């Protein structure tokens, strides 16, 4: 089993946090994992992206150049990573901020209004968890529960009510199904 993931969006949208969380969850599930951030001149409001590998065998390179799954949170990320997705791979689009549709027919696409759902739940910050929930359900690469269990390991100071909100966001995301 090998799942190469790329997450991309504005700095501040939780791109890096979501990536670390996936790697932590994969590790706790007994998988081989790696996480690699783009570490250029990233800043709040600029662009940020990261690579995650979750696999059953040792990870060779942590840089995912053709992802099995790309999760894009903003327009520029869609333009950058849609062409990179492996044929037959998955593209998760944050439809709250991205008006464009995916152009490729050889990949699966899932439109998830991450920001709208986060707003419904009462905290804009959990929009990245909505996307991870959708990822878990659509790929089966890991379970929503595994991601939820990893939350307190990565965010040690998370208050119980905030933790609960994150789990809710994961579950809402998992309700989105591929056609």
């Amino acid at each position: 089993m090998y799942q190469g993931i790329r997450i991309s969006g504005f700095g501040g949208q939780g791109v890096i946090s979501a990536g670390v969380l996936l790697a932590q969850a994969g590790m706790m599930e007994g998988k081989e994992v790696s996480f690699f951030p783009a570490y250029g001149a990233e800043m709040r409001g600029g662009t940020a992206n990261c690579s995650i590998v979750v696999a059953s065998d040792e990870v060779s390179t942590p840089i995912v150049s053709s992802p099995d799954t790309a999760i894009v949170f903003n327009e520029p990320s869609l333009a950058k990573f849609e062409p990179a997705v492996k044929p037959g791979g998955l593209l998760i689009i944050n439809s709250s901020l991205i008006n464009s549709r995916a152009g490729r027919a050889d990949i699966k696409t899932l439109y998830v209004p991450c920001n709208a759902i986060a707003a419904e739940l009462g905290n804009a910050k959990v929009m990245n968890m909505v996307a991870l929930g959708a990822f878990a359900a659509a790929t089966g690469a890991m379970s929503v529960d595994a991601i939820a269990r990893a939350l307190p390991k990565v965010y040690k100071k998370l208050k119980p009510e905030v933790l609960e909100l994150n789990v809710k966001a994961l579950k809402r995301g998992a309700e989105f199904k591929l056609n």
Partner: protein
Amino acid sequence: MAEKKLMKGNEALAEGAVRAGCRFFAGYPITPQNEIPEYMSWRQPQVGGAFVQAESEVSAINMVYGAAATGTRCMTSSSSPGMSLKQEGISYCAGADLPIFIGNIMRGGPGLGNIAGSQGDYWQATRGGGHGDYRTFVMAPASVTEMGNFPHKCYEVAFKYRIPSMILADGIIGQMMEPVEFTTPEIDPAALPVPEWAIGVNKNRAKRVVKSYDLREGCLEVLVNERAKRYRQIEASEVLYEEKMLDDAEIAIVAYGISARVSVAAMKLAREKGLKAGLFRPITLWPFPKARLAELSNRIKKFLVVEVSLGQLVEDVQLSSCGRADVHLYARPGGAIMTADEVCRAVENIVKKGAKEYATAK
């Protein structure tokens, strides 16, 4: 088995140094190694050590010279352009027989280059970027776990032979996160004997001097030759390397650090295609495992060196194999990392199509 923890390579290197007894760190910020000083800034106070953000790289290496002269386990770190600035200080530490520990998380060069990972400082690290006849003990980790565990060996060798030691990693190994397991014992530096050369408070003992020169007629030659004897001891007893599937190999890929990781995947792809490929990974870059490579070159007649630099490691492989094998090169300059498919294709070109020498990129 210790619990696995998800860590960045840079953080693991810093924690590994602390576990190996590091109690003084001086450095200056530069990408992609900033997590090392950041980690040390809160970790050193926890263990009663000191952290200094110096005003420059030059200042930091000279602070480390001072700390090492007292017998303290100390460290500085930087990335390529910053390492160039430190070279004078490293030469002085070598000349003063000081056991310092340096981390170089390589980025693209020359000049300011870029901030992406690279292996372009191989020559600088293994040949000595500073002046004079000296050597640095250089280890090349290929995983976050090795980043965490190699500092122990670096301090051990540095203090045993009184020599600067270095971890040479690339920006990718420094920036990536993966599970880390610390397997080396934790060292309490207070429990270590004070070296017989260390300076400090002089209570009823003979005066000690730490210096990197001897201007008296004929004396420097004696000093440098004495030091060279220790270099020969290191070459005889501190070489480390890893081999994979070389027993029946027709071609051996030689690579270190991130290139070695990619090469392992390439080796597996090549095996799936029925090509008898193996891997030789130098873990110590100096001393270079030349005796073992020489031995292998009697049997394996094709080598493919894979590096993120335009042909630096390849020269050590050529020197070691001494014309007994064809040495090919797959090279990319800093900032571009090869894929396993590309390396596998190079293997195929050499083995099947009989490509001659320097089978290069693309």
